[in-house]
């Protein structure tokens, strides 16, 4: 299963961190820093794999991909295929690109919740849920449409107050 998805910029600032099976909230920043010092020291034309056992414990592998100012990192165990995970990063980024039209780091900073939504549509409980970026975009668009729709009708609170007033 996938253990963690992280996005951070080249300065080591975390932009997204989601953990599916381990490491509580406290460790997140620590791990990010750790990952980052390792990642930034790597040259451009090397492989996308890193030894993750020292950071994430045994039976974990790490793939990362570098896009402009951002690193996308996936940590997973031996039940996943390494290259497939690399492809998944690509799908994630392609989806972001479609959702934001030329995605940049700022988009990710200011649309934190949306990124989470997209990620949740793609990975569910550490397992790959959807791999087609068109499907993902469709799902995300619908969710956001529903969100805006449901925002216009304030549901429960209003009716509760109505009930109280009665």
């Amino acid at each position, binding site marked *: 299963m996938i253990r963690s998805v992280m996005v951070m910029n080249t300065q080591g600032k975390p932009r997204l961190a989601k953990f599916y099976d381990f490491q509580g909230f406290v460790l997140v920043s620590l791990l990010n820093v750790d990952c980052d010092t390792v990642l930034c020291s790597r040259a451009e034309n090397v492989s996308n794999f890193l030894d993750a056992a020292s950071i994430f414990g045994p039976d974990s592998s790490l793939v990362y991909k570098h896009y402009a100012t951002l690193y996308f990192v996936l940590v997973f165990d031996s*039940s996943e295929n390494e290259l497939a995970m690399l492809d998944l990063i690509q799908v994630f980024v392609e989806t972001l690109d479609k959702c934001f039209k030329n995605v940049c780091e700022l988009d990710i900073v200011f649309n934190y919740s949306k990124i989470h939504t997209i990620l949740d549509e793609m990975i569910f409980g550490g397992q790959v849920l959807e791999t087609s970026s068109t499907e993902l975009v469709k799902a995300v668009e619908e969710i956001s449409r529903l969100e805006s729709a449901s925002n216009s009708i304030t549901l429960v609170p209003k009716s509760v107050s*109505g009930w109280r007033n009665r």
Partner: protein
Amino acid sequence: MALSGMRGLSVFISDIRNCQNKEQERLRVDKELGNVRTRFKNEKGLSPYEKKKYVWKMLYIYMLGYDVDFGHMEAVSLISAPKYPEKQVGYIVTACLLNENHDFLRLAINTVRNDIIGRNETFQCLALTMISSSARPLVRKKAALCLLRLYRKNPDVVNVDGWADRMAQLLDERDLGVLTSSMSLLVALVSNNHEAYWSCLPKCVKTLERLARNQDVPQEYTYYGIPSPWLQVKTMRALQYFPTIEDPNTRRSLFEVLQRILMGTDVVKNVNKNNASHAVLFEALALVMHLDAEKEMMSQCVALLGKFIAVREPNIRYLGLENMTRMLLVTDVQDIIKRHQAQIITSLKDPDISIRRRALDLLYGMCDVTNAKDIVEEILQYLSTAEFAMREELSLKAAILAEKFAPDLSWYVDVILQLIDKAGDFVSDDIWFRVVQFVTNNEDLQPYAAAKAREYLDKPAIHETMVKVSAYLIGEFGHLLARRPGCSLKELFSIIHEKLPTVSSSTIPILLSTYAKILMHAQPPEPELQNLIWAIFNKYESCIDAEIQQRAVEYFALSRKGAALMDILAEMPKFPERQSSLIKKAEDIEVDTAEQSAIKLRALQQTSNALVVTDQRPANGTPPVTQLSLVKVPSTSSNVDHHVADQGLSQENGTLTTVDPQPPPADLLGDLLGPLAIEGPPSADVQPQQNIVSGVEGVPNAVEATAIVPVGEQTNSVQPIGSIAERFQALCVKDSGVLYEDPYIQIGIKAEWRAHQGRLVLFLGNKNTNPLLSVQAIILPPSHLKLELSLVPETIPPRAQVQCPLEIVNLRPSRDVAVLDFSYKFGNDMVNCKLRLPAVLSKFLQPIPVSAEEFFPQWRSLSGPPLKLQEVVRGVKPMPLLDMANLFNSLRLMVSPGLDPNPNNLVASTTFYSESTRAMLCLARIETDPADRTQLRLTVASGDPTLTFELKEFIKEQLVSIPTASRAPAPAPPAPQPTSPPAAALTDDPGALLAGLL
């Protein structure tokens, strides 16, 4: 249901009922819909109660067959209501109304998810119910993964019985998204138990075929022109959990697909496409490996990997190396892999540390006697340029390889000394202890090692570890160099003494010992040297470090004893042979957590098959390079007795005592330094030293005596590794594993049992670089078994493995075991051992489930001895009931939980097969006493008196912790001797009353 409270709804329903015809009904419905619509639009003042009412009305209308195209939002909003009634309505209505409505379902999912992760159990149930009732692919996808998540978190909670059929149905799904999620679920399920899911196998192959041929794959699931690589990968992963594919048609079509994948993949320019296609390709490789394809296909795979490790794309290089390392597990292809050695060595210089690591792993794995020299030299060369992060690993690996595969000993010494020279900081003490042991145990090597040490001492700056090892070697063997230039004792002394100011206080004791030894070797005494050394001893007599101080004082005193010095400081006796602590250490590093993965399962299968693959670590740790060990110090006899008493069962195994001869590695230092420090602890390991001391008191020959193996001990000089009895016990409940292992040979077993027949394969693996001669295996069969062993070759070539199949037929029930009388010759050692073969009674059992309706009549019809025997067993290994149930299940006696009304009792059923009895149902019942776990009452019933007796005794043996007493007459006459307690005991025992009820 709270309908009674909703008057409006009741009125509406009765109105509908009162309608005379369809037209009237329609009018009424339209009117009501209009009403509801206006109320919903006019949101203000709509109380939860009203909302609930209208939503129910909507559902009613929907049920009547009218299209309800509004108000879904209200239904969904009820789900998020804080109170249960509203929520319940919301869920029910949503589940009914929304399974076709796209938009609102997504909103519902969010709320449902909230409820699932919430604390309220009733809400969770509601949410899950809704999920299960909805057929939308999106939800099913999530539901599958949701189940998977629950299953992974807590497999006991999710009841997976009977999922097999549903899984098979799920795999018929056309939607690739759902299929991907279902496949993930399947992977988790089959990884725990593949047996139940055989029906899914052909479907997986079909799915794979569909994808690989790009049939019916929608555009959105094509990733860079490749039909859903994730699903392909997952499918192949799932297939790897099935041990084999038996159906020839399925197998053929799978291999066709695999062939297509292997051949049809090329390195292309687009990075993403490349990644995706290779993800599939690597998974296919893993699957081919798993399926043990024909050699041709395997070599094709290796050729592909060979291509990969040379490509430009770093990811593929990395994975190529990694997969090659996995490929090493497949015996046939190792020679082909070796052809790529040059390329792999080049990868050690790759700019990427990840790739260098993989290359190192691969080199380490593929190393054997033929290429050890090249590989170790490459590693040594690389060591000087490697980054610090890798040096420790590198030096450890180099040391281990040099030890395991040394073509000659001087080379081994060269390697270790070079290693210390180049990476002293990363060379652990274990490494130099080991080289000292080797040199001490091999006389031919001693002058060479001393000369080498002398050479290194000439270097201007050397690492402290190098000072330690050379000082030790020079002290012990420096006198052997006496005639060489620059090697007089005085010169040796001064060159070592030069280093003294540079070393830390842990090294000084070793230097002092060296001085003492040099002094001893100076015969006749050289006054000049004597004065120099005495001065040093004098100086350190007041040292703050107690160890140094003690040595200085004692050596000074001893050196004035004249001739007695010769005896006390004589050469070190040889070290007892033991498992290399280095190799142990390496194993510890490689220990992983037991996460279920196909590759690991595979590795486990490999070791349990007891494959002594040439350059793979054997399951139980490799013993030291035993051809080097000429002498062993036998264990003290008291030690042996103690162990024999512990393992009463092992007595049957005849000549071989089952003593685990390995002292903990911690006393390595004790071994080295103990004899030098005069007052060592009186442990078995420093025994030679005690002899030395006693030698001072008048038996000058004692030193020699300890260094010689007593003649009588010859046959015992080869000690088995691990306990034979334990291995046998383990094999009684498993079908493959190691039966016997000693430093020269490993005997593995793999067995298949079918009804009253069995086929057992013995794997005889020579662990050494010399052949094993005069190999003989004789089976001593008990009367109830017919055994046929195929021909065992007389010689087992170096590092080879021989397979000897053994056919077994069970004639009648008996607990006796067959014995394998095995002997071989290694050098001058003649080794003979008698091993029990795990063809025990339980192997001819076939567990069958029995329902209460079947059990009770059977149980009653088999009444009393000799068909039903009962015995109170005392001295039982105390264990929880669950463990006992597991033990029974592992003995192929199927426990039927809940059949016995008393929770402290177990009821088990099985079928026994033999030629005389055919298939015969056996029933057993255990009544335990929760107050006293060491005793229980055992009742066994079957249709054959001998079988009942034998089975009862067999179960008893398994339950009782020290079975020596019960099985004292080994071939117990199979007379049906009822040993059940007197009838009085029966009536007293409340358990007996229960037994009557059963």
